[in-house]
């Protein structure tokens, strides 16, 4: 009798050999066909520089790109003002990304139907996997100079359904008093992170953000400390002439970038400092630190009408403290390899930890009205995290990237009286991928993007008494990331 298992094994061996061969061929074609990269739109069109001059891989900035940005989108050659440009030049870039992705979410609570019943007879916990073709949102980037040393950036951005919001709207006075140490920015802008989420190279749902920049303890009601989101405020930034030493200080509305002041009158400060040093053949390395220290409301005025009690927008008071601080490091290992490290220690006030905070959106379930007291033993939730992101830049057109993030609660809000595990809400996530730009011109950019993300979080899924409530989510994504 023919051994079917042997046949299957042989076929599998053949198949895997073919896959390996095809993969090697694909890698060879990708590597061999790397062409010189041209400039990306908007700024590259204006200055005639390739995208690779400013970006490690678009949109992540390299050192020169950071200097260009810090100078107010100027290369400081006395030709930055728009008066020097061809009158037909219009500094606009549009970006959109059609994708295929497969998302597998662990631990989704589902109803169970049994015994011919058309109504749920129980519930279970199952894994939900979805795959198919999809779209990202659409970004319209426009920015540059209005005059020498006056710059702007405007970014209307839509979600995949076409619902727009203003991601960035800012104007900036550059080199005030003829010194690079004083630049003033007003509006909604990306925070001055060494590793900016707005320049992230990854696209998946969980991998497309830095978890460290958005972490909120389980049941915590404070949405206001998210360093990854663009914020509304005023920023003062300064840097040395070669941009090796930098500082920034921003005063932000505690609104997480939401317009129309729905939350109240609280403010947050965001401070960074970092310096670069010449590490010889290794490259120019950077080290520094950041701190986000703010207050946000926990008490909301309500109004009772025909439809019951509603919250009055903008009425937030009872401000409580929160903070995030950590270190940055960007280390090059020659022209092709680098790694960025970001650490964080975070702390929210005990009121946030008990579910007070963004009551207006229903994210925090509790309202700190007169007479409210915290459960005895409540304490400030605190946590520590680290993010490590290595890159290997084979050529300006091909970058391999990875990321590891882990966040560990060091103190839960409920303290000794709580029943939750000490690891509740802990996150571990890995992301790997590559971006290949088969061509770039100074009119358009195109990347073939491939990425895999895996995320694990402790105790936040439904358990229904079954096993643990830990969640494992994974996403595989392939897409064409283009702009023009």
């Amino acid at each position, binding site marked *: 009798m023919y051994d079917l298992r042997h046949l299957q094994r042989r076929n599998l061996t053949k198949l895997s050999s073919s896959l390996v061969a095809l993969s090697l061929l694909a890698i060879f074609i990708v590597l061999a066909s790397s062409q*010189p*990269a*041209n*400039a990306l739109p908007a700024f590259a069109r204006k*200055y*005639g*520089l*390739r995208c*690779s*001059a400013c970006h490690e891989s678009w949109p992540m900035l390299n*050192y*020169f790109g950071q*200097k*260009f940005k810090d100078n107010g989108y100027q*290369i*400081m*050659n*006395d*030709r930055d003002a728009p008066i*020097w440009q061809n009158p037909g030049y219009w500094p606009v870039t549009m970006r959109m990304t059609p994708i295929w992705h497969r998302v597998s979410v662990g631990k989704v609570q589902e109803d169970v139907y049994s015994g011919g019943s058309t109504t749920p007879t129980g519930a279970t916990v199952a894994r939900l996997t979805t795959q198919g073709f999809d779209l990202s949102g659409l970004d319209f980037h426009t920015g540059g100079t209005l005059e020498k040393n006056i710059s702007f950036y405007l970014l209307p951005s839509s979600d995949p359904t076409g619902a727009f919001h203003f991601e960035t709207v800012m104007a900036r006075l550059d080199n005030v008093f003829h010194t690079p140490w004083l630049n003033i920015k007003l509006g909604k802008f990306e925070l001055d992170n060494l590793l900016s989420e707005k320049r992230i190279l990854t696209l998946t749902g969980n991998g497309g953000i830095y978890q460290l920049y958005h972490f909120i303890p389980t049941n915590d009601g404070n949405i206001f400390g998210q360093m990854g989101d663009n914020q509304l405020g005023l920023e003062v930034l300064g840097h040395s*002439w*070669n*941009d090796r030493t930098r500082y920034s200080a921003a005063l932000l509305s505690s609104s997480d970038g939401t317009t129309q002041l729905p939350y109240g009158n609280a403010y947050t400060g965001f401070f960074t400092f970092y310096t670069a040093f*010449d*590490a*010889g*053949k290794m*490259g*120019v390395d950077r080290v520094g630190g950041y701190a986000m220290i703010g207050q946000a409301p926990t008490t909301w005025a309500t109004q009772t009408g025909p439809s019951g009690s509603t919250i009055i927008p903008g009425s937030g008071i009872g401000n409580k403290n929160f903070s995030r601080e950590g270190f940055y490091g960007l280390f090059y290992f*020659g*022209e*092709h390899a680098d790694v960025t490290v970001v650490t964080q220690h975070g702390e929210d006030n005990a009121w946030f930890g008990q579910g007070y905070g963004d009551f207006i959106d229903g994210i925090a379930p509790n309202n700190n009205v007169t007479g409210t007291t915290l459960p005895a033993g409540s304490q400030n939730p605190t946590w520590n995290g680290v993010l490590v992101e290595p890159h290997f830049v084979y*050529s*300006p057109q091909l970058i391999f990237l990875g990321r590891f993030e882990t966040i560990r609660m060091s103190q839960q809000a409920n303290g000794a009286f709580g029943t939750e595990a000490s690891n509740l809400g802990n996150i571990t996530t890995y992301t790997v991928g590559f971006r290949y730009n088969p061509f770039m*011109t*100074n009119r358009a950019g195109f990347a073939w993007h491939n990425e895999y993300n895996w995320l694990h979080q402790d105790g936040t899924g439904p358990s229904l008494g079954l096993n643990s409530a830990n969640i494992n989510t994974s996403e595989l994504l392939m897409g064409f990331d283009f702009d023009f």
Partner: protein
Amino acid sequence: MRTHLRKWSLPNLALWLIAAVAVALPLTSWAQLTKADIAVRDNMEAHIGNLTGHINADSKYAYRRYCVSCHGDLGDGNGEVAQWLDPPMWPKPRNFQLGVFKCRSTPTGTLPTDQDLFDTIARGLDRSAMPQWSTFTKQERADLVAYVKHYSPRFATEKPGTPITIPPEPEVTPDRIKAGRDVFARVQCWKCHGVQGNADGPSAPTLQDDLGRPIAPYNFTEGSRPKCGDTDADIYRIFMTGLDGTPMPSFADNIKPDEAWDLVFYLRTFMAQSSKAKQLAKGLQLKPVDPNAPAGQ
């Protein structure tokens, strides 16, 4: 008729061909070099202080990442962006193959030192598309100097000139500023730069570089930095070395060192940047030079 035919006999034809080739050969040496022509200088080095720049994978990578869009794969200034740069507002990228550079510490007609090229990369060139690449490490810059040099056969056959000596800067005085005005008139700086330094001299519209492309004289009044550095010594150096490849000649044979300092001080009075010379000039009530005055007024 027979005579005419004899004139074009085979030996004669051969002689004509040899002569034609002899004439054409030097011309071909000005033609664009190929990758193979350039590759023979892959062992080019640059020496800046204790640093040695090499042509290696890193310098090729850096050139490709930062420089190639303007200067091109062959270093001939014909990168894909060059076509969009319209002189005189946007000077065309430098053709490294010619081995001719504006910013040098060496006499006119000679090659720049490695330090000159090293400094130019970090300083950039104002009023052009050349940014300040001060973000590179020193080693990266040294490697790029070697890479730039390998494009030109001149660096394989000639040595850089000896840097000119710049005497110590004297104290600026009203008399020196007035003397500088006389130098300005005598060597006719105004013909290109205008009598008030705002680049509107009678020759300004006609200026061309060595490749026949329009070029604008420096406007001292607009507030931009001089192309090769903005210290007094940098300005002094420009008079004495000239800007090779442009109509700005070297005045090393026409201006004495002391006079060159006087001229620096006078030019400072035009410039938007504050300076002691500018302060002193306020009390002098200097009139612009008179283009119609006898030479040497």
